[in-house]
């Protein structure tokens, strides 16, 4: 019996980041682009206990800049360190109840939070991959997760849950491995990026590539393109918020001053906030990973294998779906979730849909919400 972190009350959940390596050369992983990659390491964390029947596993797929640390704390964390990114949802008695379910969260392929990505060492050269790292897709990320499930002895998933780019992975799981997925919860996501979503990603990429420190992705032994990455994050943050949320949080308030500085310092609170988010982000994230992951998200189209290739739909999956959107999300607006619902209905799938009223924009799915908790609990209990 696999044992992850098990807790009976709401005390701090203690977790450990673990690593699984596969595709050792010459048995490299074949990517959707046809390129081969190996070895591949996937960082992951588990919570709760896998039942003897192995039927209570739930995979949580994180969004583009996320990591495997979905909830709880690490043993070495100092006082005041924030818990995992979805601690309000994952834990004992929470929406994804770790007393009932065995929760798995792994870092996506191409990222920089423990899984193989452009910052990893290329065994062929002994140096970080940089742009030698092959392009990875949402399908490749899901294939790597599938390998991890095999390693953990999980061949049925009670549910696959994820928001944003995590939601794309959820959908891809249903289409790619229909026999494994009993239910799916895509939140604040889309079947394919709109031109606007691609546009913002392109601005973020250009900000990085315009930074002289980027040096065609080869910066691991020199100064990193922190300015470009910070600007990319600032653009991202604008798309994660909403007009309402920004008015509520910042308005036109000035930052630590009573009058304009009449210079290009950060006068407004919102400027100061974005600068802070940018400089915080460069401490933890790799610029090349941002390039690769945003491109994977832009390429993603559930309805097509790749442009001009096989059309796909939800006709093979038997999973029960719960689709959730947020009223003020303008990155993946509700109409895109409704298109997903429409496709599911046409395929005859069992689908529930709820738009949650929230002014926090795309980020709303990450915020604590009692409604979400009840919806998740009820839905997961109803999955046979």
């Amino acid at each position, binding site marked *: 019996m696999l044992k992850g972190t098990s807790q009976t009350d709401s005390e701090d959940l203690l977790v450990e980041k673990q690593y699984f390596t596969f595709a050792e050369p010459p048995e490299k992983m074949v990517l959707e682009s046809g390129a081969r990659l190996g070895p591949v390491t996937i960082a992951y964390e588990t919570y709760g206990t896998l039942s003897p029947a192995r039927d209570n596993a739930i995979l949580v797929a994180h969004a583009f800049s996320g990591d495997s640390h979905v909830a709880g704390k690490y043993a070495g964390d100092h006082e005041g360190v924030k818990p995992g990114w979805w601690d309000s949802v994952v834990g004992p008695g929470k929406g994804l109840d770790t007393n009932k379910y065995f929760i798995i969260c792994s870092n996506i392929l191409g990222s920089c939070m423990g899984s193989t990505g452009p910052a990893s060492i290329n065994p062929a050269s002994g140096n970080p991959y940089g742009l030698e790292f092959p392009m990875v897709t949402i399908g490749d990320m899901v294939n790597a997760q599938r390998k991890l499930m095999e390693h953990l002895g999980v061949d049925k998933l009670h549910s696959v849950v994820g928001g944003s780019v995590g939601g794309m992975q959820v959908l891809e799981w249903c289409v790619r491995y229909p026999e494994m997925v009993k239910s799916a919860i895509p939140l604040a996501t889309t079947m394919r990026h709109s031109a606007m979503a691609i546009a913002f990603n392109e601005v973020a990429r250009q900000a990085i590539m315009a930074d002289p420190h980027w040096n065609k992705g080869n910066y691991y032994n020199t100064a990193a393109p922190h300015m470009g990455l910070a600007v990319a994050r600032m653009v991202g943050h604008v798309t994660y918020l909403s007009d309402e949320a920004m008015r509520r949080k910042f308005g036109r308030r000035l930052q630590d001053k009573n009058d304009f500085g009449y210079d290009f310092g950060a006068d407004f609170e919102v400027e100061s906030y974005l600068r802070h988010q940018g400089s915080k982000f460069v401490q933890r994230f790799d610029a090349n990973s941002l390039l690769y992951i945003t491109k994977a998200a832009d390429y993603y189209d559930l309805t097509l294998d790749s442009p001009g290739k096989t059309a796909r739909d939800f006709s093979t999956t038997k999973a029960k779906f719960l689709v959730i959107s947020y009223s003020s999300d303008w990155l993946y607006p509700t109409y895109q979730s409704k298109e997903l619902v429409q496709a599911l209905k046409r395929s005859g799938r069992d*689908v529930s849909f*709820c*738009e949650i009223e929230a002014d926090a924009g795309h980020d709303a799915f990450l915020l604590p919400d009692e409604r979400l908790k009840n919806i998740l609990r009820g839905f997961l209990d109803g999955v046979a």
Partner: protein
Amino acid sequence: MVSPETDKMRYDLQIIASWIDPGSSVLDLGCGIGVLLAWLTVNKNVHCTGIELDKDKVAQCIGKGLTVLQGDFNSEVDDYPDKSFDYIILSQTLQQVFEPARLLYSLARVGKKVIVSFPNFSHFSIRLQLLFYGLAPKSKQLPYSWYDTPNIRVITLNDFRKFARDVGYRIVKEVAINTHNHDYTGNIVRRLTNLRATYGIFIIEKENR
């Protein structure tokens, strides 16, 4: 598991529930907090789907383990393939529908049978109000004033029978009822229904030609 809480069910819903075959599939339009769906799931092993506009009610339904979609059923029903459901239920809503003929056409396509219930506008108390006071009638079933009512259609049992016949539906079954006690109890009206019943409930299906 859907929680088997036995919320009090409206009398017309009790009758509708009694007509549903065990193990069948049902789409409930305007399902509210899912009282009928939960009852059918628990007691008749029915495969249920609901559509409801109110987000909080939808959240309550999903929280109970029911399959419910948030949206306007007038457009949501269009996405389903033909004959997706054994029954589609439109209870006490027809009088609020903007395009009833178009909606019923869609419902008869998506469902094998359509169950419709609505308040009867030719009940004698309504007739008397118009006759004696000359005012737009109000009743327990239709309690609004002319200027704030969501009930934009006035339908009588005879109207519905005629409508069904004219547009090509067969009435498989019908019952006229009177309800009491906040609609939770009632009785079946057998004679002079158009005059004496407060509600009509019909099962219709598309005529095979």
